[in-house]
């Protein structure tokens, strides 16, 4: 039902009369408007399902056993059911950002008015590439950002609806809906972060943002300590304001965990970063915080219980996470503070200014009363570890499959190293201690092996500047910058610190552009090299070859997709406006960008990654991510790699599986690095560019696997693609494989290979 009136309505919303760019084919697309694009993508990159449960328990007809060819009582089969769960997960993820965006925009409208202009400084003219590309709107004010989020909310209704029993019944259609809602996730993230940047006046036009202190060791526990946890800077910025106004900024420590930490350091570089989600429970149990202000997302659900145990008080400040607390938003500050100080009462305050005032006043009063325990030392730890009866329960429940028990037994024998390893790989879930029948205080033991060192985190930057895009656009598209690697998401999994840092180091050294967001952006700073330098001190913060850029918090992920869009726009001159298919096609075939979500664990990560996928950006996931249930994999030898030659307008079988997958789980960091290098390959690479890419691919493969890549022949189009350094052996290899030259296209595109209103001409400017 595309409808004339509907069209008029959209044109009004996106101000069709503003003629900044012609309007593309899909302004404010409805759920099905990009369905053919999705179906085309998923023909090459078929959904690969690994059911996490054989059953469906979503309605009272069930549980239904869907094993193999069994169908549920509603008729659904296991594939569609997986697509359904993935769709639901993406909706949960997207709504987290949409809710955040809606809230922060309203908060800022309250402060600044809805006409408050969007101005990202003189280095950023293409201010909201996702909103431009998806909606067709060039947002000028906070109100426009709100409009974008409202549109996303309406779409959410339709997608959630489709997960109801008796609605969608096809796996690929579910995936199309997941792709749709995840594309909108990026719209909402962009709206949220741009609102925050303008509303809180975060810096946007400098590459070398300040370095802030990171780590629990950096916190002066003698001062009152306020810990902010979550994702939404409304309360934390009010806290900073309150401290500034009262001249208390040096008297009270403000430290953050998760994205709120990143946001807060953008607002004040006196704020400190404790670390990622994986350190939340550890830090809370360490009892260093006097007051904990929780906002939304990534907050441990047992926070109040844990805080009570160590005498910290919690202020919940979001409608998303009220935690059963009494709302005291309208009660006098004194009264609330008194209840906190005297009775340790946690509370819910939905007014951020009030929450800030209460937090500071309570912290000032509580801190002197509390005696914070010092972390235990190794001697004490060895003693406590002796309670371990080697029963194995802790090992069995660890979601990270860590050998907790054996490490504790070693610790009891005086060897702390294995347990230190465990701590470094630990996601801080607390299951081990809960499971221990002998009451071994595992988290306390961790205090002894945790490093109380201080690290550095570079403050988040926000969107990539247009000037930077202008500079790197050509090298990226042509392949002379071998790729943009985006480490996104939670990094709350295996060996996070070491593995993430190692990957970043490897690719930065090889002059890829490395960008980071969210917990990964913190994690990477938590390792020092021999000279005592963190990654952020070792590499510059520019979006350029060899740069390591902290883009910002989770919502900054939109700037990564945004950067890819800007390459199409600024470098290739393609209009963004309502032109999603063309832009996604461009990114897929020409921009060597790869997302890495190594420790992704939540629904947000699912939607962020899926949003990248719709735009043609492949994502590499860590091993546990198989539990997301779905990947998008091609079969390089069986797949059809035909594309349209945009110049000649004819179909060409390129025989080249590039990029090979859209979403893949790899088992080890070694494999991941090789895969990342390979996924940077694009059909559009120039021959010198391809040489460089293959050079890294071969080099990494040899380093980790010992031989030439056994699929190398698929990626060599002509002899000129072969890297000089490996020329001889590659030629020999190609000969053995019976390799023959393949066509080289300068304008490869999928447009024209499937049913779409977009003409092939639209891919050229």
């Amino acid at each position, binding site marked *: 039902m595309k409808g004339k009136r509907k069209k008029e309505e959209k044109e009004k919303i996106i101000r069709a009369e503003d003629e900044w760019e012609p309007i593309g084919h899909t302004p404010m697309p409805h759920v099905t408007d990009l369905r053919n694009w999705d179906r085309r993508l998923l023909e090459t990159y078929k959904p690969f*399902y690994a*059911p996490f449960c054989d059953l469906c328990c979503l309605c009272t007809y069930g549980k239904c056993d869907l094993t*193999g060819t069994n169908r549920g009582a509603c008729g659904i089969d296991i594939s569609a059911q997986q697509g359904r769960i993935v769709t639901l997960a993406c909706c949960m993820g997207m709504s987290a950002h949409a809710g955040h965006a809606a809230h922060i925009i309203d908060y800022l409208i309250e402060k600044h008015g809805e006409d408050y202009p969007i101005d990202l400084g003189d280095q950023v003219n293409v201010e909201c590439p996702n909103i431009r590309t998806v909606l067709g709107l060039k947002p000028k004010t906070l109100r426009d950002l709100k409009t974008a989020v409202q549109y996303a909310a309406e779409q959410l209704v339709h997608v959630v609806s489709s997960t109801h029993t008796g609605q969608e019944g096809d796996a690929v259609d579910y995936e199309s809906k997941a792709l749709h809602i995840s594309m909108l996730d990026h719209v909402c993230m962009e709206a949220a972060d741009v609102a925050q940047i303008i509303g809180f006046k975060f810096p946007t036009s400098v590459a070398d943002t300040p370095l802030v202190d990171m780590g629990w060791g950096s916190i002066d526990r003698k001062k009152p300590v306020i810990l902010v946890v979550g994702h939404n800077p409304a309360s934390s910025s009010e806290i900073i304001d309150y401290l500034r106004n009262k001249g208390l900024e040096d008297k009270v420590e403000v430290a953050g965990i998760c994205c709120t930490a990143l946001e807060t350091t953008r607002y004040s570089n006196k704020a400190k970063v404790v670390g990622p989600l994986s350190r939340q429970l550890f830090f809370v149990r360490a009892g260093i915080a006097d007051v904990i202000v929780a906002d939304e997302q990534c907050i441990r659900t047992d926070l109040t219980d844990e805080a009570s145990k160590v005498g910290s008080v919690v202020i919940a400040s979001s409608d998303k996470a009220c935690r059963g607390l009494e709302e005291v938003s309208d009660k006098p500050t004194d009264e609330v503070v008194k209840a906190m100080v005297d009775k340790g009462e946690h509370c819910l305050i939905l007014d951020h200014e009030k929450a800030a005032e209460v937090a500071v006043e309570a912290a000032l009063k509580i801190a002197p009363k509390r005696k914070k325990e010092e972390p235990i030392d190794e001697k004490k730890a060895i003693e406590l570890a002796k309670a371990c009866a080697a029963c194995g329960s802790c090992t069995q429940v660890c979601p990270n499959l860590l050998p907790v028990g054996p490490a504790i037994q070693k610790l009891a024998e005086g060897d702390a190293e294995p347990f230190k390893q465990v701590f470094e790989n630990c996601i801080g879930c607390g299951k081990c201690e809960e499971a221990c029948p002998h009451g071994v205080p595992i988290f306390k033991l961790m205090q002894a092996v945790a490093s109380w060192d201080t690290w550095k985190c570079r403050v988040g930057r926000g969107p990539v500047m247009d000037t930077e895009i202008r500079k790197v656009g050509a090298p990226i598209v042509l392949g002379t910058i071998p790729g943009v690697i985006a480490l996104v998401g939670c990094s709350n999994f295996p060996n996070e610190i070491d593995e993430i840092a190692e990957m970043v180091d490897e690719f930065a050294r090889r002059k890829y552009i490395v960008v980071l967001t969210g917990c990964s952006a913190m994690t990477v700073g938590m390792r020092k090299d021999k000279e005592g330098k963190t990654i952020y001190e070792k590499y510059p913060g520019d979006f350029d070859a060899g740069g390591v850029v902290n883009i910002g918090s989770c919502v900054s992920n939109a700037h990564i997709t945004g950067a890819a869009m800007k390459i199409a726009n600024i470098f290739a001159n393609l209009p963004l406006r309502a032109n999603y298919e063309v832009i996604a096609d461009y990114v897929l075939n020409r921009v060597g960008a790869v997302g890495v979500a190594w420790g992704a664990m939540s629904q947000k990560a699912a939607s962020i990654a899926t949003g990248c996928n719709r735009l043609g950006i492949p994502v590499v996931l860590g091993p546990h991510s*198989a539990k997301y249930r779905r990947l998008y994999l091609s*079969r390089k030898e*069986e797949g059809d790699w035909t594309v349209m030659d945009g110049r000649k307008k004819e179909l060409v079988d390129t025989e080249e599986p590039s990029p090979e997958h859209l979403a*893949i789980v790899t*088992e080890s960091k070694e494999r991941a690095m090789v895969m990342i290098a390979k996924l940077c390959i694009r059909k559009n690479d120039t021959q010198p560019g391809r040489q460089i890419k293959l050079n890294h691919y071969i080099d990494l493969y040899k380093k980790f696997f*010992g031989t030439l890549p056994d699929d190398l022949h698929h990626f060599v189009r002509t002899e000129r693609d072969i890297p000089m350094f490996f020329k001889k052996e590659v030629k020999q290899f190609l000969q053995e494989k019976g390799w023959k030259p393949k066509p080289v296209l300068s304008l490869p595109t999928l447009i024209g290979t499937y049913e779409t209103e977009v003409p092939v001409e639209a891919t050229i400017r």
Partner: protein
Amino acid sequence: MPHPQHLVNILTGIKGAMEMKDATPLAKIIKKAERPLLVIGPRALEVEIEGRPFIEYLVDIAKAANIPICATAHTKKKLLELGMTPESTYDVVEIVNALKDAEWKGVKGEGCHDFVLFGGIRTDLGNQALSTLKHFAPHLKTMTLCKYYYPNANFSLPNYKKEEEWKALLEGLVAGLK
């Protein structure tokens, strides 16, 4: 249905692996396979059984029954060092994706495998990969050789508490396959 080692991967439905404790019937089952495949993952490099890397046991099994190998992650390098060239190198999800396809020609180009052994894959990832095969590859059977119970396999070793038991089984298998 016994419980898997890692509770976090637990109970997924009503079709669970048969727990195999004896080498003899296992060897028989493997021998009956027409086109078996052994998938070796990176844990096989790290895990040792009484001082000897797990991967060496797996190589022994491959040699004993002349089973082709798919090396996942970065295991290829070690296999080459051990003088064993794997027939193919894939990510574990890639080889599983190929195995799903009954028309696939297999690592040796002779047709899709009918029996796939796994060793050295993380329990969570392994069990997920096996889930894919359980649901979508009725044309083959799966078996795991790690010391944990993988509910989504067709045949799995039990959760071994004692290394020597695991070792005995693996050695018994090598002997039985010769």
